[in-house]
């Protein structure tokens, strides 16, 4: 909206700037804290400027870890988190594409029932079914494995729903043209349907990667070994409330590191997002 008064021109910017400040300031403080030594932080006189221990703190965080609370270098935790987030995101996309394909393009008995069953799982996130799911994973001897960490989180209706909605907008004539061109169902799926859904896949990847990366409760339950810890669990463990001293500079460095991959994914995939929104391929 174009306003005649300069004040009204300025007001929205002020509001936006305030909002950004509220979000960004704690992140900035965390970053500053990750560049000072423990003593400076704990005596309560940490300045708001970047300190001299940046390289040292990050090196220790990534390759050595804290001296007491977690016995694992954060680099390894990041790797665990990355594997978990990637497997969850890609697994969800793969299974959802296939199930949406089945529901939209094949006439089989109880097709709509199948769809509604998938739909109902929207109401059953891991947190709701945590006890039975844990029992199953434990019985399958999948505790402390990546399979146990990811498979229960892969089954989800959200992506199936999204792809179903997208597939329904693909004109029937494309299927018919494929049939006449001699492409069977799987060839149609890989040659036509998947390339057309690429922007939806990108959107789903961003959402599901962040969902996977931020998992807390499930990894906390499933993993006991230090080598299987994810970074989100790591942060929690670093902040000790008992007699030991929290190594705040390392906890803060870990927090910053934990933030990076999701930010990176959003920044990198945003281009595909926008491209998908501007030029719809249909």
């Amino acid at each position, binding site marked *: 909206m174009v306003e005649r008064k300069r004040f009204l021109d300025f007001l929205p910017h002020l509001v936006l700037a305030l909002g950004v400040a509220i979000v960004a300031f704690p992140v900035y403080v965390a970053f500053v804290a990750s560049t000072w030594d423990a003593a400076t932080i704990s005596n309560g006189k940490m300045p708001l400027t970047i300190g001299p221990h940046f390289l040292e703190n990050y090196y220790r965080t990534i390759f050595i870890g804290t001296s007491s609370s977690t016995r694992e270098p954060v680099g390894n935790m990041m790797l665990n988190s990355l594997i978990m987030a990637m497997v969850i995101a890609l697994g969800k996309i793969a299974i959802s594409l296939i199930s949406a394909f089945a529901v939209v393009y094949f006439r089989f008995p109880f097709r709509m029932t199948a769809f509604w069953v998938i739909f109902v799982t929207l109401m059953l996130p891991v947190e709701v079914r945590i006890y039975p799911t844990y029992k199953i994973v434990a019985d399958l001897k999948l505790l402390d494995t990546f399979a146990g960490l990811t498979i229960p989180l892969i089954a989800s209706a959200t992506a199936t729903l999204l792809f179903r909605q997208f597939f329904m907008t693909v*004109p029937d*004539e494309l299927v018919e043209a494929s*049939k006449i*061109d001699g492409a069977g169902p799987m060839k149609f799926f890989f040659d036509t349907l998947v*390339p*057309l859904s690429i922007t939806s896949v990108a959107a789903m990847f961003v959402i599901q990667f962040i969902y996977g990366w931020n998992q807390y409760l499930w990894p906390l339950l499933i993993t006991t070994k230090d080598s299987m810890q994810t970074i989100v669990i790591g942060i929690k463990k670093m902040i000790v409330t008992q007699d030991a001293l929290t190594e705040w500079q390392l906890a803060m460095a870990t927090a910053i590191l934990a933030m990076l991959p999701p930010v990176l994914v959003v920044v990198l995939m945003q281009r595909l997002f926008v491209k998908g929104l501007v030029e719809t391929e249909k």
Partner: protein
Amino acid sequence: MSDVRLSEVRKVYAGGVEAVKGVSLTIADGEFCVLVGPSGCGKSTLLRMVAGLETISGGTCAIDGRVVNEIEPAERDIAMVFQNYALYPHMSVYNNMAYGLRNRGTPKDEIDARVKEAARILEVEPFLERKPKALSGGQRQRVAMGRAIVRKPKVFLFDEPLSNLDAKLRIQMRVEIKKLQRALKTTSIYVTHDQLEAMTLADQLVVMNKGRVEQAGRPLELYERPATLFVAGFIGAPPMNLITLPPEGLPGLQLANKPTGKVVLGIRPEHLFEQGSKSADLSLEFTVQAVEAVGAETYIYGALGGNGTEIILREPGKASPALGTRLKVGASAANLHFFDPETSQRLA
């Protein structure tokens, strides 16, 4: 040889609706057959059954002597052009045309040769690397036809391919389709609801109504001797004047040699002439209600004196009778058509 023979083909949908009620049709090798009819007459369903996109509920469809009822679309050796083109949006024009050949395992250099040849014929060479969305409607239509001709199929199927184009382009493409089909001599089945398109393209014109074939034959045969009331009203623009004549006749209408009983009299607007001193086998009087001048000819709409039946008269050149005047027109016996109002069949 690649003829198409349909015998007693029926389509019954799951809900019990019978879309095609027993159609028998023979399309000779190299013939251009046009199916025309109002929407919902079953023409598209019939085409889709030939393509294999709809199952055939009864009867047989044979392409080149082989019954194809149970054969997959890809194995029927047909190619189809869709109304909305149905190009693969993510593939370049080249790949759109090559896709069907690749799926059949055609050697690469042959695919290349065939695609380039088709692109040359259809004048889409400059766009081979473009995506369909960067093309205009007419260019997309050409690519869709290219996709059909590279396959060198036994039969081309066209499902209202020109409906999405503007009027000017439609006429241009109509001529090109005709030329292309003449050159390739491929048996073709073409579905349209536009009777002008049907008349100009067809070797064999098939008029369908309510799931049945009303009449099939050469376009001018249908124009000159419509077999039923429906065909009489459907073929020709403006449509034929159809006047229901009771046995006792109508005031304001004189007819020599009237058949006995109740009949429907048909006379085309272009066969009526303003009656001066000329004698005519049919003469009728009507009141002018509207005049449409389109330049080369003038359409005069009026109501028949006797029962108010609408009459359309086509006058060559510019005529402008005042509204409300009574006009006396005539026609010669050779141009009159008579139909039975009960069976709607042609009499004699």
